[in-house]
């Protein structure tokens, strides 16, 4: 089955197509962050170059975050619209999973760290399992200090990846000795690879069931007391 992967949860926007024979074609742009302008032409380009009609696709995979609100929204909207029009199922995969997956051959703890802006990051920890990686503990959002505290508490050999690890390299290394390298952005190729193994198990959903993972501070009521008390 051919899978189209749409990845736009971070600064990078990317599209991949793949299936049984692995990844067939990929297009990525990591600068400029013009997700909305780039995505549709990128899908067309990848399909044309790989000589694939949209109607050949059997599934649409999409990165559901956490990441940039604006980027995710563009990717999810495009992915859902395509899946609906083509009447095919979808697979949503977390950006943290996508960052960890290419590091599945290390025996260290893999820690994808995504820039959440305002000094905060999203992160999760993964360990190697046969054929891939597995998340240990729930994904978290918080200040860099919390990430460092989490790393210290675990005190295991760690590999940090992602744009958050890249941006806050010094802060992380100041607090905890570890390696920072590997992928900076989740890749659409990893998305297609991971989605393919799920598709084999028919672990897909309908477009209406795909929800973004925002992973933000808990929602709170705005205190409009000041507003109401005013004339």
């Amino acid at each position, binding site marked *: 089955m051919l899978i189209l992967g749409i990845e736009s949860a971070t600064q990078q926007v990317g599209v991949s197509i793949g299936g049984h024979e692995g990844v067939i074609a990929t297009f990525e742009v990591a600068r400029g*962050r013009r997700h909305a302008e780039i995505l549709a032409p990128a899908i067309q380009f990848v399909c044309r170059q790989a000589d694939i009609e949209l109607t050949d696709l059997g599934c649409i995979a999409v990165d559901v975050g956490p990441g*940039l*609100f*604006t980027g995710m*929204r563009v990717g999810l909207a495009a992915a859902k619209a395509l899946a609906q029009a083509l009447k095919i199922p979808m697979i949503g995969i977390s950006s943290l999973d996508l960052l960890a997956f290419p590091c599945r051959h290390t025996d260290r703890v893999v820690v994808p760290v995504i820039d959440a*802006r*305002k*000094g905060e990051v999203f992160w999760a920890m993964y360990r190697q399992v046969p054929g891939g990686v597995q998340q240990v503990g729930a994904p978290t959002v918080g200040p860099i200090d919390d990430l460092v505290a989490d790393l210290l508490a675990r005190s295991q050999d760690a590999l940090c990846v992602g744009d958050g690890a890249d941006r806050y390299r010094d802060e992380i290394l100041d607090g905890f000795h570890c390696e920072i390298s590997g992928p900076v952005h989740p890749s659409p190729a990893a998305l297609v690879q991971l989605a393919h193994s799920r598709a084999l198990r028919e672990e897909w959903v309908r477009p209406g069931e795909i929800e973004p993972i*925002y992973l*933000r*501070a808990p*929602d*709170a*009521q*705005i*205190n*409009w007391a*000041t*507003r109401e008390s*005013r*004339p």
Partner: protein
Amino acid sequence: MLLRAASLVDTCAIASSLAGLARVGDIIVLAGEMGAGKTAFAQGFGKALGVTEPITSPTFTLVHSYPCGPKLTLHHADIYRLDSTGDVDQLALPELAEFGGIVLVEWGDVVATGFGDHLEVRLSRDEVGDGAGGADGDDDFGLDEARLIELQATGRSWSGRWDRVAYGLEGYRC
């Protein structure tokens, strides 16, 4: 920094001076009660950035975006209708600022901690100084009245510009 705008023209001039110092990435919170002049300020600000479309209150659509050349978009938001911080988060205003934008947020002071570095512009009626050439008292709206405008920066992004802010607004200082 406390300023006094004797009229709507002054409010627009102050906005225009700040627009000259604003840059991509800025979030400017517009605070003050209904009718204080937040939208009026945004109009002066937008005009200075070359926005030719009329800037109207975005109360119903939440965010209006005005392209100001190839590398800058002015976003004008009004969060008065929102009830939860999650709803505000969904607008992703800091992202709009980060990627080629300047964002003005009416009523943004109620959730300002979520914005990180920003400038707050707080408008209020100048009860004391008013009356000289201002409202006749029968109707507050549409008339030229004095306003007090208080500027306050949170974070460091404005500290390097503060001298120029003060210099540009010297004539309006209280």
